[in-house]
């Protein structure tokens, strides 16, 4: 997708609120953000609901996008917030279970190599099987590139908790991959 395409489509939608321009934006972005939702939410139905909420919000709040910064980043933030909100509403509090991984579990180089060769599908599956707290922090810290400070604010935890939980989440994921 060309950068100019998205920009022009955004401008067309902002200026005219034309439904067709919005549809075009949806066509350009929906697949990517649907995938993002799947990473956070585990099941397709929830991901579809959140994608819907996201684009409805984009439609209604387009005026609050001032054109500075990436439009995609703006939509991404809305999507992530909606995903987190969904997890909260489902009463899936971000409880980080430190007992998930036994401290004496051996981690050798060979298992690491096998993990690296994991396919996208199995990786996504392993991610979805992680506890919601680990899954969320992996998504936020690694795939969305949020800082620990930002993550702390979003999840209502301290920065140090965010860091430690990220480390544990990585170990948990690797363990999942090795076992699968």
């Amino acid at each position, binding site marked *: *997708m*060309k950068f*100019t*395409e998205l920009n*022009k*489509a955004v401008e*067309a939608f902002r200026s*005219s609120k*034309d*439904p*067709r*321009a*919005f*549809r*075009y934006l*949806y066509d350009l972005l*929906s*697949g*990517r953000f*649907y*995938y993002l939702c*799947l*990473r956070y939410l585990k099941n397709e139905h929830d991901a*579809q609901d959140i*994608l*819907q909420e996201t*684009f*409805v919000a984009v*439609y209604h709040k387009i005026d609050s996008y001032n054109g500075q910064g990436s439009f995609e980043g703006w939509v991404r933030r809305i999507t992530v917030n909606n995903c987190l909100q969904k997890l909260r509403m489902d009463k899936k509090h971000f409880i980080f279970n430190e007992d998930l991984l036994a401290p004496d579990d051996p*981690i050798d180089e060979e298992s*690491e190599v096998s*993990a*690296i060769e*994991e*396919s*996208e599908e199995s*990786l*996504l599956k392993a*991610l979805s099987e992680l506890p919601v707290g680990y899954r969320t922090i*992996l998504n936020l810290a*690694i*795939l969305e590139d949020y800082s620990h400070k930002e993550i702390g604010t979003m999840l209502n935890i301290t920065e140090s908790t965010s860091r430690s939980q990220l*480390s544990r989440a*990585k170990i948990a*994921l*690797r363990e999942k991959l090795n076992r699968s």
Partner: protein
Amino acid sequence: MKESNDIEKLLKDNLSDKTAVVPEFVWDRIEREIYPRKKGRSIFWFLIPGILLLTGATFGFFAMHDEHRKNAGSAVVNHPSKEVAETINEGTQDVDREFQRKADANLSRTKQQSQSDVRIKSTAFQGSTADFREKQQERSIGVKALPALGNGNILAQPGKRINTDNAVPPLENMHQAESDGFVPQEDTASFRIAQLSLLGVSPFVFPAERIEHAVNAVPELQKRDTRFTLSIYGGSSMYDVAVIKPYFTSGQLSNRTFTSTGYEAGAGFAYKAGKRLEIYAGVAFNEKRTSFNYNLAITESDFFERYVHGEMIPLKNINDDGVNSCFLAKDVAADYGITSWLLSIGGTYRIFTQKKFTASLDLRFSTNVKNSLEIKNFTVLELPEYAPEHFNRMKLGGGLRISYQFHRHFSAGLAPMYAIQLDGKESFFAGRMQELIIPVTFSYHF
């Protein structure tokens, strides 16, 4: 640390910037939430033609009824004296109510008088204008009731009396006979005269020119035999926009073919509102079929401009190898049909008559009440889901009607009309479509 970085790399490489296929119903749900379906067309646009149709039908019904009565009356008008009688009939219709009221009030008194073979003396007033006026004042009720007859121009034809002395039955019997339908038509005039005399009103005051006019009017009445027209029409239509034509007229085209066909057929009801003016209302069915086949080059900038107007080219169907930021879409093909139901109101104004030929200006206002779009074939380009309200719009048309009256009740002709859509906002499909319809018309006049 290395392990940690490897996991990060693994995640980013495999799960970052990926896409998944979104089920189509997600967009449907979004669309429903963002754009709640419009609640149909405003009833206002249905009411106008509806009311006009209803009014026309009502007029038609009563006019036919009235015509029938007049015809029944005029059937016995064969000579001047009977024409006068007919005129009296018409003139006294206005005083029927007044008469009825007074007649009822005087009925009991009259009954007593009429028991012994009441003879009602009626005499045509013959005298000077002054005498007439005096008489008129004395019988103001009658004069008021007959305003057309009270202008002082008295028929002064001594010796010409309208004899009403013959066989005037008692009022009671007359009422009964009339209600039973047994009163011969030719007796009606005498009966009315008798009724007026009974009330003390002198009914036999007729301005000469009034009578003369009445006499002369009889043939005119017979000529004025059509006020209503039922018409059917049908014919081909040509149109310019052809729904998404602007998309194809920009950019560089090659291998271009374009065909369009259309027709409109309808029926209408017209009322002759004036000597030259007719108003009408009708319903019509319109269908258009369009077929395109193009190679299309379009600039990147135009692409988005077009996109805002609703036309799309899926990116996968576009070659974007050129250095000049042009997209190239090959073998664009489109084949689709649009059907519409229209309600129309309008008017025609006759501008020319030569023997049996008539030419009239025609002005028509139409509104779409039901539309559908059927895409037969569409390649390369992509249309969003069709929304019927895109075609709900109004049309204003003007044209010329040329008709030939080949029978007293029937005529046929051509009615070419140019129409343009009134909706100011260019919509996705149609733009501001212009259309030329050339239908053949058949009309029945009554």
